[in-house]
């Protein structure tokens, strides 16, 4: 294997990189720590799992609360990591703050890895810094990870590391070992790595058509990776695969709400959300270095972005996940664009004004990126669990009841975590039978004006409590429940923007 001499980054540039990292971390923690609670019900699912691992060493695989009894299938890498960290540090700091700090720290490292990738490709430190900045403040990535216990906080940096080591594997044997080590970690954290590998397969197909055959060592590495990742995912998700077949890709989401997760994309929507500058820069780089100049490693990005766009188009990946990944890769390409632009300008008459142009470019980047990042981060922070909701859920924990709570799917995991009550539905839909019927029943219950219908549905699911928060109001387009007029049948237990009702009667059976 030929060794390639890569210039070492200067200390001054390292200083700027560390500054970007600290700025990103500070930015994240500013929004994360100013609110109590986490954003998204998934965070509370993950929190339950982490607490279970801390307590018993095992995650909750058979749960009595979710859907009043079900099995989970998920990759537990992040959960074990956080459980371990919590085990050591929870005596000094609350879990909530600890997890926010740790996960935002991991997420912020994506900036450093982005720098490493672009520096490796371009040997241009400034280009690396541009990529680092754009990645650190990628709006969608921020929104998904800033205030959530999300596997993306760890899997995105790991996947970027995989890209980095894959690029280096062409000439550095150590990169192969490191690639494999990171692959194992990434495989047990999130299934995102499968998307990356499919992208790399497309990369190999692309370069083979361009008469740039891939080295045998890299081919072996890719084949091994595919088999390993496929095997891990098959073992973990085999019950889900058995239950849903290929439909597992769509996570058994009820068809009535699947459009909230998989919706038809249009290019304007994508450009708007990932920002115009990275998009145009990324397109330019892809065009120039795959069509005109044919730079082998740029094909890796081309392959991954192509796969992501296809998967979004075919609704094989959730919109926000696909968009997040695309925005990160376009952020990387923005860095390479900077290198390309500065190399070009250096050869022109205005080479002397390069620093000025760079300053304008970077200013534009900072303004557009940070403004967008601020908006998305603010939104994530605002969407976190409100004080009212937390109080309501804590109240619900005190309510004596062996039966289930009816709520919208997005409230389910909050109820399970805070109130330790059984739920009729939550947003973990995998391996739940008759999911469409269940969702339709819940929707009917919230919208029906008829007491008998509501009672019938509640009896069907052995539920005796109805939870009504802004989530339910928005989900089912209602303001209040129309059938709760009869106090003999429905008792209002709690009313503070969140309303909790208890059923007092049963539907009589015919004699």
């Amino acid at each position, binding site marked *: 294997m030929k060794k390639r001499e890569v210039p070492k980054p200067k200390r001054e540039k390292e200083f700027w990189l560390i500054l970007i990292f600290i700025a990103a971390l500070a930015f994240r923690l500013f929004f994360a720590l100013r609110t109590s609670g986490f954003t998204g019900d998934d965070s509370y699912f993950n929190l339950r799992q982490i607490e279970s691992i801390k307590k018993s060493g095992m995650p909750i695989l058979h749960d009595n609360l979710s859907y009043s009894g079900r099995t989970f299938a998920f990759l537990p890498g992040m959960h074990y990591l956080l459980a371990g960290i919590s085990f050591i540090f929870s005596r000094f700091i609350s879990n909530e703050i600890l997890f926010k700090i740790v996960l935002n720290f991991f997420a912020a490292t994506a900036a450093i890895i982005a720098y490493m990738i672009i520096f490796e490709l371009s040997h241009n430190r400034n280009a690396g810094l541009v990529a680092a900045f754009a990645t650190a403040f990628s709006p969608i990535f921020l929104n998904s990870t800033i205030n959530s216990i999300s596997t993306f906080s760890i899997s995105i940096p790991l996947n970027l590391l995989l890209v980095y080591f894959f690029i280096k594997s062409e000439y550095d044997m150590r990169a*192969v070992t490191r690639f494999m080590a990171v692959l194992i970690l990434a495989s047990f954290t999130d299934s995102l790595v499968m998307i990356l590998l499919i992208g790399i397969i497309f990369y190999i197909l692309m370069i083979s058509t361009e008469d740039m055959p891939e*080295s045998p*060592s890299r081919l072996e*590495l890719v084949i*091994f990776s595919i*088999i390993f990742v496929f095997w891990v995912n098959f*073992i973990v998700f085999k019950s889900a*695969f*058995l239950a849903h077949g290929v439909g597992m890709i769509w996570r058994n989401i009820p068809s009535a709400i699947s459009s909230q997760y998989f919706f038809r994309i249009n290019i304007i929507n994508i450009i708007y959300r990932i920002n115009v500058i990275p998009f145009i820069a990324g397109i330019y780089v892809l065009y120039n270095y795959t069509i005109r100049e044919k730079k082998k490693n740029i094909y890796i990005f081309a392959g991954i972005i192509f796969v992501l766009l296809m998967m979004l188009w075919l609704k094989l990946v959730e919109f926000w996940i696909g968009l997040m990944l695309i925005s990160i890769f376009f952020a990387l390409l923005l860095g390479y664009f900077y290198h390309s632009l500065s190399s070009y300008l250096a050869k022109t008459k205005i080479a002397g004004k390069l620093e000025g142009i760079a300053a304008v470019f970077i200013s534009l980047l900072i303004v557009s990126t940070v403004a967008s990042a601020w908006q998305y981060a603010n939104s994530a922070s605002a969407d976190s669990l409100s004080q009212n909701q937390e109080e309501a859920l804590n109240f619900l924990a005190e309510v004596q009841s062996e039966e289930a709570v009816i709520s919208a799917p997005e409230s389910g995991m909050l109820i399970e975590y805070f109130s330790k009550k059984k739920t009729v539905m939550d947003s973990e839909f995998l391996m739940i039978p*008759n999911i469409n019927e269940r969702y339709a029943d819940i929707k009917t219950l919230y919208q029906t004006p008829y007491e008998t219908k509501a009672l019938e549905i509640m009896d069907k699911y052995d539920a005796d409590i109805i939870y009504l928060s802004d989530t339910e109001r928005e989900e089912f387009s209602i303001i209040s429940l129309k059938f709760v007029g009869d106090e003999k049948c429905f008792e209002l237990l709690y009313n503070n923007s969140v309303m909790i009702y208890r059923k007092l009667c049963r539907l009589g059976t015919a004699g």
Partner: protein
Amino acid sequence: MKHSNKKKKITKHAETKKKRIAILPIIYTIVVLLFMFAVFHAYRNAFTGGLPAGSEGYYHERMAKAINEKGILSYDSLSFSGRTYIFSAYDYLLALAGKVTGVRAASIWIPLAMAIISVFAFYGIMRKSGMKESSINIALLILAATPAFAYSALTSNPQIAAAAFLLSAFYFYMREEKAAVVLSAILFGFASLFGAAALLISLSIAGIFTIKHPERKKRFSALLGIFALMSVTYIITIAKFGLLPISFGKSLSSIVLELGALSGIGIFELILAGIGLLYAWASKDRNYLPISMTALLLLLFLFGMNVSVYLAFACAFFSSLAINFLDERKWSLNILRGASIILILCGLLFSGLTFMGRAVNMEPDSGIVDAFSWLSNNYSGGNVLSVPKNGFYTEYFGMKAFSDDNFEYAPNLEQRLNASQQIFYSRDLDKTMAELAKNNITYIVITPEMKNGLVWRKEQEGLLFLLRNNETFKNVHLESTQAGSIEIWNVVPQVQTAG
């Protein structure tokens, strides 16, 4: 003189050592098999009272006992409320062995013995074919860990006996000695009695081998006579009952362990076998026999025949070729070579562990046995309705089953299956009662599995709704098990009022 004696001694010692080394793989394989056997039965002894696993075994045990009591069987009064007994050589083998050790014990040791015999035969065939020692060693170990093979060794079933006779027969067919020729003819004859699949495979394996070894034409012609003789039983059955309907398109879940097939093959092994098949194709002149036999087995599988145990041998063979290929090829990165081998071993080991984890909890458990035992003590006649796989338990306890899993030449099969569907899913009490009365169904057995998706997915679906009517259905027994309660319902006969 002294020197030549010494030389002879060294040569003899070297040969003995070589023979010892050569049989080591068989010993390892048998040790693995015995270990699995011991763990399996120890667990079942501890948690299910030592009940043999698998419902099919209870059918064979019942038939073997009947053979020992009554001699040659022609009629089974319990299966499908009474049907012609379709000859099964395995029942007679079990009956014969049962005369020595008891039929229940024979149900346990016969499959193991057949598995061990088939290991020896498989080993002999691979050696005779000139396969590399390393490939043979790997093939044997993979075979022992293949769920389809292990399942056949741990449960009472005719497939492993058929495989043992067939493989032994073919091994002797490959040999030159006169005694081997006679022995192969006898063993092929016995193998053919274990079902149409065994007959077809026996015929094919001998035939394909003979095509490449024309000097065995005479031998094969004699074999054809034996096959023709043995096929008389099938011809008589077909003449009497017609051809069996062919069921096409078995799904992956019936052959892949991780997709639910307990007697299937692990996905990792299937992928390896695929790689091995591609590798073997490159030298198809040498590997004509395993390739063509695999093609035949896949065809038989697609036609709905139970050939999983034979596929286990084929997969073990091709997997070993794949592993050898991966081990011997020149890798650009040695670390990947090591990692790939480790990954393969982990994959195979995981399949084995998955299988054992599920196999030890196979039905029946003590709850099912206690429930049917109670019913048999309180049985007042009529048919017992449950899902077909519970039919064997019903019959084992001396009661008439409305249906069981033995669909071959079952009387009024379609009508009975339709009636079962009608009864299970209808909410119309009158229609259901009419079906129950028409089919003389007096008891209904409902297991937790039936309520958890095997029959019903929702509470109060179909018959579960009608069972609330206590004038028509009486819940006579509830047996608690870990999975839930087994319910036994008595159908109250309706009194016909004068019109």
